[in-house]
């Protein structure tokens, strides 16, 4: 949105092609259009509910409804919650942290009654506070890392007082509702027959290995879990954009200081260029929009640098080490879509399979509906830790970014390339 507004402000003709029915992405997820969103999109043509399944050279943006021609493309497809598998994570009642928040913020519905929030990252706090604020009973918030690590970056929080104030606000909400918050604790298993009825929580070491003797069972009907975010880079990869490993171990599109990718005419901004939250996304988005028009802004460059500096510390304070692999049982589902269990992946690795793509071909992990979005990084971690960029790219490559009906394809007036 920031990119669209900046480009439109610079005199360009702009179309926003948005997957969702309402603008705002994951952050501005309100029941009606947020004023900031409305202001940004005032001079822009907004196509709602358009699911981009491919972008071809030249450029043609293909959606299930229509195709849109453009001279330049700005990819700002955001990110989704990152997950690591654990026994029972496929039970109904286990939700991604972002999904739990989306239900409350966007749909006015609670995901359940007795909720545990777990995983890692600053995002857990607004999720928990939002659930509590909506009337849920949050029985515990379990952060696998230790945010006290921020002291290793003296001055960082002092340079970003807003973040501290924001965190303090969420902590105050949790304290007011007497929600216990434990650091260095993980949910190591979820239990239930056909839906969640309890989780096992344990203290963990720096590698996320459970400390013996610390496990305890907590009854709950809902678990909201997330370990940071995985950028949605497939449209950029399909266009041939260069990608690289970000500091958090995820795959991002490589951009220069104008937010231009390695493919002429293709720009990228927001989480696809590095997970960093909405302020960084707004700054990089606006710079991308200006760059398409051949312009820049010193103020925005400073803002981007400021917020990038904070974002750079996050994977160091909230890493996702590979100790979670040791908590998997042989029958733990790793690929949810194809129901590939850990023992199948372990067997492939023991056969001598060295790369993620070969594991995918042998086990079907990553071949299901979600095309490896949820399991890709986990599977890549099982073939080599930390996974290299090409292993992640192999799991992130999707010819079609979204499913499309053959009927919709046939109904389109096409031009043969």
């Amino acid at each position, binding site marked *: 949105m920031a990119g669209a507004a900046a480009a439109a402000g610079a005199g360009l003709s702009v179309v926003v092609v948005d*997957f969702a029915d309402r603008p705002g992405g994951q952050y501005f997820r309100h029941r009606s259009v947020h004023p900031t969103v409305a202001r940004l999109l005032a001079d822009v043509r907004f196509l709602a509910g358009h699911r981009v399944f491919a972008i071809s050279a030249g450029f043609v943006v293909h959606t299930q409804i229509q195709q849109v021609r453009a001279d330049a493309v700005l990819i700002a497809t955001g990110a989704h919650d990152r997950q690591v598998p654990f026994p029972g994570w*496929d039970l109904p009642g286990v*939700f991604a942290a972002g*999904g739990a928040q989306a*239900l409350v913020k966007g749909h006015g*519905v609670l995901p359940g009654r007795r909720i545990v929030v777990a995983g890692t990252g600053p995002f857990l706090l607004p999720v928990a506070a939002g659930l509590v604020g909506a009337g849920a009973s949050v029985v515990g918030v379990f952060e696998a890392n230790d945010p006290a690590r921020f002291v290793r970056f003296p001055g960082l929080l002092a340079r970003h007082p807003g973040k501290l104030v924001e965190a303090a606000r969420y902590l105050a909400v949790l304290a007011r509702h007497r929600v216990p918050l434990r650091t260095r604790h993980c949910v190591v298993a979820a239990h239930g027959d056909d839906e969640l009825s309890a989780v096992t929580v344990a203290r963990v070491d720096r590698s996320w290995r459970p400390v013996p003797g610390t496990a305890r069972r907590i009854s709950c009907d809902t678990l909201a879990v997330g370990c940071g975010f995985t950028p*949605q880079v497939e449209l950029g990869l399909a266009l041939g954009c260069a990608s690289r490993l970000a500091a958090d171990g995820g795959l991002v599109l490589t951009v220069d200081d104008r937010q231009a990718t390695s493919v002429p005419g293709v720009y990228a901004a927001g989480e696809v260029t590095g997970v960093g939250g909405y302020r960084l996304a707004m700054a990089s988005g606006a710079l991308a929009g200006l760059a398409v028009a051949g312009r820049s802004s010193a103020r925005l460059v400073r803002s981007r640098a400021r917020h990038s500096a904070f974002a750079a510390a996050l994977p160091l304070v909230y890493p996702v080490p590979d100790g979670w692999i040791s908590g998997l049982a042989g029958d733990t589902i790793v690929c949810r879509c194809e129901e590939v269990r850990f023992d199948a992946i372990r067997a492939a690795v023991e056969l001598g399979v060295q790369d993620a793509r070969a594991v995918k071909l042998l086990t079907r992990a990553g071949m299901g509906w979600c095309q490896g979005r*949820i399991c890709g990084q986990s599977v890549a971690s099982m073939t080599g830790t930390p996974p290299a960029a090409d292993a992640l790219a192999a799991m992130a490559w999707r010819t079609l970014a979204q499913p499309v009906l053959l009927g919709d394809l046939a109904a389109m007036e096409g031009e043969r390339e």
Partner: protein
Amino acid sequence: MTDHVVFDGRSLPMVPGQSVAAVLLAAGIRSWRTTRVFGRPRGLFCGIGVCFDCLVTVNGTASVRACVTEARPGDVISRAV
């Protein structure tokens, strides 16, 4: 007079703007699909349209992601085949 959708023959209340998944969850329905290999129940997981766990049939159209499909009054929703 609240709006309603029909799910598996049951009338469920809905609020305009809610997704099909939100309507189902608000009614206490937490799973509406079973997996192909092990027959395990699935409902909502990622909530934002990327995991495809929440597939449901809406007005005869199969494999619709319930979490990113807006519920409309009178929609007939049934379990994914």
